[in-house]
């Protein structure tokens, strides 16, 4: 069940430079699962389109949902100014979440792909190894992953913390294997993770990103190329918002 409603801001803090953690009171959390996303709408009347943001944490008991986002443009800039008690339009939960599988899982996040892996790690039934990639030592959500993962491996582009290199460099360095890999991050990272998974013959889910308008599968704005004919348009295009954002790495062209 999808909801469009006005959520109330409960808390906001800057986790790292330009990375914000926003806590919203919204009924959306009643229906949300890890890997899904919500649309947040700017209040400014000249910015019409939704900003799709992944769900980072769900607290059904208190009806709270946490998202973590990077200030990337005017919309997220506006969100970063929201304060306790402010109101903001949201819609969700959108898309399909990660299937919760495996005795042992690797969750891989790169940059702003880190946050969605948190609720996933919390809900996965088996053992979880978290591999998180950052630009530099301006880390975020490290404590959170330390709490929920049996192991947290960090890679940084500049080598200031953990492995000097990408998340896949870190995975190789640590000879990681598992029943299933879940990944979210920039496309080149997803591609590399998918290759690693193929090499090691591990099932792999990736979370994709594309420019969106409707967020519900109606406008066909957000397609990614699929390896097989899609069910909806029969033309090798899957809708990230409706058929994804989570796909099997073998389903989509990375």
């Amino acid at each position: 069940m999808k909801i469009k409603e006005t959520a109330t801001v409960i808390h906001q803090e800057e986790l790292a430079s330009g990375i914000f953690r926003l806590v919203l009171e919204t009924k959306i959390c009643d229906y949300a699962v890890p890997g899904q996303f919500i649309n947040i709408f700017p209040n400014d009347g000249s910015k019409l389109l939704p900003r799709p943001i992944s769900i980072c944490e769900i607290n059904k008991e208190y009806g709270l949902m946490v998202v973590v986002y990077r200030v990337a443009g005017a919309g997220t800039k506006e969100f970063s100014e929201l304060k306790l008690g402010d109101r903001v339009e949201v819609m969700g939960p959108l898309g399909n979440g990660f299937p919760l599988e495996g005795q042992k899982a690797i969750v891989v996040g790169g940059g702003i792909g880190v946050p969605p892996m948190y609720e996933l790690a919390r809900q996965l039934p088996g053992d979880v190894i978290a591999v998180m990639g950052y630009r530099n030592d301006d880390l975020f959500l490290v404590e959170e992953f330390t709490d929920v993962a049996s192991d947290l491996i960090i890679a940084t582009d500049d080598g200031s913390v953990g492995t000097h290199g990408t998340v896949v460099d870190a995975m190789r360095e640590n000879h990681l294997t598992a029943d299933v890999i879940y990944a979210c991050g920039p496309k080149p990272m997803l591609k590399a993770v998918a290759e690693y998974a193929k090499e090691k013959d591990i099932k792999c889910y990736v979370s994709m990103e594309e420019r969106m308008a409707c967020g519900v599968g109606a406008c066909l704005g957000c397609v990614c190329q699929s390896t097989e004919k899609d069910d909806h348009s029969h033309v090798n295009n899957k809708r990230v918002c409706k058929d994804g954002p989570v796909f099997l790495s073998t389903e989509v062209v990375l």
Partner: protein
Amino acid sequence: MNTKVTIAGVEFQNPIMEASGTFGSGMEYSEFVDLNSLGAVVTKGVANVPWPGNPTPRIAEVRSGMLNAIGLQNPGVEVFCERDLKFLEQFENTKVLVNVCGHSAEEYIEVVERLANEPRVDMLEINISCPNVKEGGIAFGQDPKAVEEITRLVKSHAKQPIVMKLSPNVTDIKVMAKAAEAGGADAISLINTLTGMKIDVERQSFVLANKTGGMSGPAVHPIAVRMVYECANSVKIPIIGMGGISTWEDAIEMMLAGATAVSVGTANFYNPTATTDILAGMIDYLERKKINDINSIVGIVK
């Protein structure tokens, strides 16, 4: 109060439709809107065979509007009939307008003929104004002779009434409206999107893979109102008005300018209940103004 309007003999329970391409076939928005409460569902453009559409990015935001370059991705008329029309069968109060696209006259005709015996299709909206495909589409819609010809051709093959959907990317919309009328159109709908462009100054490249895209949303509304007004005062056939309608005021404005019915497009993206919200606002307005029949406001501002 009467909210019924009639276009080419088809009676709509109210003048609110959603605009083609912004609502799928209604399925995705049926979680938010009771489709049975709309005047009509206007489906995404459908061709004779599946079209893959354009590469991504297909969407860009602009101030008070958006650009899209979907490129008419669609599953082809076969799948459309089997799945989408079938889905729409359950909404008996709502009419169905099928938006038809093609690269050539033959392709339009193939779709129109395939739809001829589908009872769920109440009307055909012929899209001769899509700026996002290389051939067909807008090429037909920018030359009055071509408009008249394609209208006549489609009309001669169509079983249902036809609405010609006009492009705003023209010098004189009245000429196009008259051409559609001369070709035998039962109604016209306008506006389709205005061709726009956005460049990413940091990456120094186009935001859309297709370079240009069709602009829609509140930013285009004043242009749409002007064009609907011009057409309403040039042709006798009814007009379905659209372009940036996002509030009830926008919809009333369009009807005062001369539209018999209105379509809501881009607004669905930021307000999934835009159609029913707008309808409710219009009814309030009519009650407040003590207007008993919605038809009595059509085109009264001259």
